[in-house]
């Protein structure tokens, strides 16, 4: 037995793959294999009403670079970036707040963060609709009743509404990973840093922020990516007047019956995101993160 362990310990690769085995198997069979189907489909011609015609073509990829869709890509990117920034600005202090609660309370605070999201997504979005509507929304009605404004604020059917909805929807995904890293910060380390720099902002900039960076990166990814692919929130809160890339992709499957083009769009989007993610991790993980 101990021989086996020694043998294993000498072979890091094998250890790693043993740990990875269950998830690798699961993902290769139930994710990569199906993904391969999407890849094949993206090179086929559409069936007129869904499905595919088995005929090889590159047309779907050519269409991805149509200015109409590039413009939509750009717009989605812009909304997703704003969403991520706002979520970070709102979520970081919240994560910090939870991490600084007495240890026994933290679990409760974290649960309190998640509980709203155990209700139904659609019902939550409609609740926002009740708040944001231009003429009959509670926010505008209240502000007008108080006499603070005389014309309703344009809170609904535009990018503001979409971003509010997305920030709300993904806030826990930002807070959780940041909290997970902040919670580990050593109190005594902070106190030592406090003595050394003697100013809150300096301690934050030099100690806390760098140490929480892995959480910030993970959180930003968890927010940015689904925001880029969002399609229900833009449809309901954005009034459906402007498309995001998620709408275009889901439309290909659910309205245009164009599975190959939907597959090609998904693939290009995934490829872009994957390359960006991997490049980011290669740059940060090996140098910066190890230094911390």
């Amino acid at each position, binding site marked *: 037995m101990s021989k086996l362990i020694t043998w294993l310990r000498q072979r890091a690769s094998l250890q790693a793959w043993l740990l990875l085995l269950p998830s690798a198997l699961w993902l290769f069979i139930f994710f990569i294999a199906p*993904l391969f*189907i999407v890849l*094949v489909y993206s*090179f086929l011609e559409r069936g007129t009403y869904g499905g595919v015609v088995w005929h*090889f073509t590159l047309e779907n990829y050519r269409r991805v670079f149509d200015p109409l869709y590039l413009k939509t890509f750009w717009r989605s990117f812009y909304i997703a970036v704003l969403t991520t920034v706002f979520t970070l600005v709102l979520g970081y202090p919240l994560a910090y707040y939870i991490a600084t609660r007495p240890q026994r309370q933290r679990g409760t605070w974290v649960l309190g963060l998640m509980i709203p999201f155990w209700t139904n997504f659609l019902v939550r979005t409609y609740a926002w609709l009740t708040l944001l509507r231009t003429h009959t929304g509670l926010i505008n009605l209240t502000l007008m009743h108080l006499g603070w404004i005389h014309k309703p604020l344009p809170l609904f059917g535009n990018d503001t509404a979409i971003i509010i909805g997305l920030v709300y929807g993904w806030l826990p995904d930002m807070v959780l990973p940041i909290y997970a890293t902040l919670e580990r910060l050593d109190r005594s380390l902070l106190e030592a840093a406090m003595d050394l720099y003697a100013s809150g902002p300096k301690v934050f900039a030099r100690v806390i922020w760098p140490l929480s960076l892995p959480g910030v990166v993970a959180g930003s990814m968890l927010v940015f990516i689904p925001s880029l692919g969002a399609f229900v929130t833009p449809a309901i809160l954005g009034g*459906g007047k402007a498309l995001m890339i998620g709408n275009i992709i889901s*439309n290909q499957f659910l309205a245009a019956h164009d599975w190959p083009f939907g597959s090609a769009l998904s693939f290009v989007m995934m490829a872009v995101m994957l390359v960006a993610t991997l490049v980011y991790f290669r740059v940060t993980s090996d140098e910066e993160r190890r230094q911390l």
Partner: protein
Amino acid sequence: MKQRLVLLVSLLVVMGLLLAACGTPKQQATQAPKPAATEAAAQPTKAAQPTQAPQPTEAPKEVQPAKEIVFYNWSEYIDPKVYELFEKETGIKVVEDNFSSNEELLAKLQGGATGYALIVPSDYTVKIMIDQGMLAPLDRDKIPNLKNIAPRFRNVYYDPGNKYCVPYQWGTTGIGYLSDKVKKPESWSVFFDPDPNAPWYGRMTMLDDAREAFAAALVYLGYDINTTDEKQLEEAKQALIRAKAALSGYDSDTYEDLLASGENLIAHGWNGDFLQAMEDNENIAYTIPKEGGVIWVDNVCIPASATPEQKVAAEMFLNFILRPDIGAMISEYNYYATPNKAAEAKLDADFLNDPSVYPPKDVLDKLQFIKPVGKAESLYQRMWDEVKAAP
């Protein structure tokens, strides 16, 4: 079937390649599935034809009905009491599943979902499904109550002679408005020639559906709503872009609520939705503009994937809902018009005389079906994307 086998085999090949890649450390750089493999997978399958053969397996004469069947329906579209009565009479339990658009239904069945004994596609979707061999023809001897269907719905373009489907409910697409706040819109020009000073400017919605939106614009311009003429579509697109400035949004799901609450004043939508919203706001009214509008029929059909036992049980259920008393019960529940002539006798005169449920003859003549347009489908979608992307 053959193409599926090919896909499965090529899948296994790729998995093998990936595993082999894992075996040789040098190959770690190539993590993505290889394009070469993709081409190899696509090549030999060219020959396979895209036919999903309908399998009209003649059921042997004495097939016992299934004990439980799944009815894939729109939500809130049938009185649950109908299931209870049916179970009491036949012992067959009906379980309901819901979908929320024809496209969802189509995509799910095309992806290979099975187990449904009954589905409720709308007219143009029925046409597509029949053409794709996705529906099983009805055994008309088992459904004697088909005689109750009004003549108008017996020879519909999508299923002449009700060979595959039983018409379930029908309705129209028009304009709903708040009668206490705006005067009745007589023409589609409220949308397509919007007056920036009108109180409803910026407080209107249109359906978030390419074909419905284009149908409204094409009717307004006096064209066939199923046109495939690019020039006419271009004109319709321009009209839709003009309308966009006056809209608070495109909405197919909550527009009637937004109207009932007073957020919006005018909405493009389906008649039954407005009728249901009248419960909340009695000032909601429905009209079909002078240029005309869209008529649609939802149908109950049996998917080709149903087993013979399920099919027999499904046909018993179809015969059951075609009974006059049950047909009336369904209309009373969902406020839509019934294509069941015999059931009309059991319905309130008020209901039968309501022009927003049963449009008068002259209006009825101006209504058109949305039909599948084949290859032009992608043209519609493309132009719709352009409307959506317009500032």
